């Protein structure tokens, strides 16, 4: 096995192109578990922690360009009010030690249906920026990035450089069900965003389908009801039952399984409750902000 430690992005891309068998490692919180338990023996580890730009974030053309190697701890400390949904999700990840190392890029690389950043990225319409030495930069809308259970849209020679996320025009929420507050893989999770600028609603479902996914019909339903009742302008209270109906439609978008963490039926139930609460909290916050 080899240990490749590029110090520039160009070197990293060249190394990945030359060595398709090299496994990128950022915070190592997924990769090293697999290594320690002999579940994975790649031909090489490709250490990305010396590629400085991956650990940076900046405003770029109205969006936050979050380097793939920015840790959860830094998202929480530095972007709590700029990217509230992702920061809320980040606060629920693992433990302080895990948040000090684990990265959003690593969560996307692992593409677990239970990854906590995914519902927040889906609700916020994030775009994943990937790059290869041969073909340059490619922008993948996050909903297209998840292609199967723990599979993503990366080609063999590509690396994730950044995630592009527009700061929200309205409130965001993130809810997660687990057996305790720390150190839990989500039984189910839900990300929610109100986009008053576009009169749209964003959603993201975690741990309740083969991939993270949106509740597209539910989002269109809620946005349409808000429109029809003139609520985007008036910011009046939500009509009785609207949030609950939204919750049921979110539930209908999921396709969970029974596993050790929970039953499919429980996951469906929790999704409808989380979606109702998230919509209610976000709308109340939107009203207070008027």
């Amino acid at each position: 096995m080899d240990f490749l430690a590029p110090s520039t992005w160009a070197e990293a891309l060249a190394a990945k192109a030359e060595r398709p068998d090299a496994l990128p490692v950022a915070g190592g919180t997924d990769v090293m578990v697999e290594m320690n338990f002999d579940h994975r023996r790649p031909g090489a580890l490709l250490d990305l922690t010396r590629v400085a730009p991956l650990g940076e974030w900046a405003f770029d053309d109205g969006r936050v360009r979050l380097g793939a190697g920015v840790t959860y701890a830094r998202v929480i400390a530095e972007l709590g009010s700029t990217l509230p949904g992702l920061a809320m999700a980040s606060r629920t990840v693992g433990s302080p030690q895990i948040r000090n190392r684990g990265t959003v890029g690593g969560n996307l690389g692992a593409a677990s249906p239970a990854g906590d950043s995914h519902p927040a990225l889906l609700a916020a319409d994030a775009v994943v920026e990937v790059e290869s030495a041969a073909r340059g930069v490619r922008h993948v809308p996050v909903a297209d990035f998840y292609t199967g259970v723990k599979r993503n849209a990366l080609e063999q020679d590509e690396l994730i450089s950044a995630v592009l996320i527009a700061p929200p025009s309205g409130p965001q929420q993130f809810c997660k069900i687990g057996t305790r507050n720390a150190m839990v893989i989500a039984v189910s999770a839900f990300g929610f965003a109100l986009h008053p600028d576009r009169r749209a609603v964003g959603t993201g479902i975690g741990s309740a389908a083969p991939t993270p996914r949106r509740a597209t019909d539910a989002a269109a339903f809620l946005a349409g009801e808000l429109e029809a009742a003139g609520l985007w302008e008036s910011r009046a209270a939500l009509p009785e039952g609207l949030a609950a109906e939204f919750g049921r439609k979110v539930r209908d978008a999921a396709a969970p399984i029974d596993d050790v963490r929970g039953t499919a039926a429980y996951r469906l139930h929790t999704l409808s409750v989380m979606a109702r609460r998230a919509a209610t909290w976000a709308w109340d916050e939107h009203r207070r902000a008027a």
Partner: protein
Amino acid sequence: MRIELTVNGERHEADDVWEGESLLYALRERLGLPGSKNACEQGECGSCTVYMDGVPVCSCLVAAGQAQGRDVTTVEGLAGDDGLDPVQQAFVECGAVQCGFCTPGFLVSTHDLLARNPRPSDPEIREALAGNLCRCTGYEKILDAVRTAAHS
């Protein structure tokens, strides 16, 4: 491969490091620093917690090669010439150590908490120590020790 890093203020080198091994393994088996404990090797228990460049991490989840050139502090580095660190002293005095396996990790995590927040509330202590598991003490004495260290 060979790695060079600073541990507890001293330059260390290790040869024949396997490319896939963890910093925890390198510390314990190659550098003769068995203070950091290996209990789960999957980031769940925190008994391997060390500072890397000033940030507490699970050393079982850092590839040894990622620590090349970095600055690591293990539990062995907490005590000074004039004796135990106040955090260590408080753990001893409060009976926060039973089998002791979790203790090195709790010491590093507590040391970090008090460096950032010298007067933490109980919820803040619980949050900061959420990545450290103890199977013996039931945590009450550990909480006592953290509060004691904060007031010493």
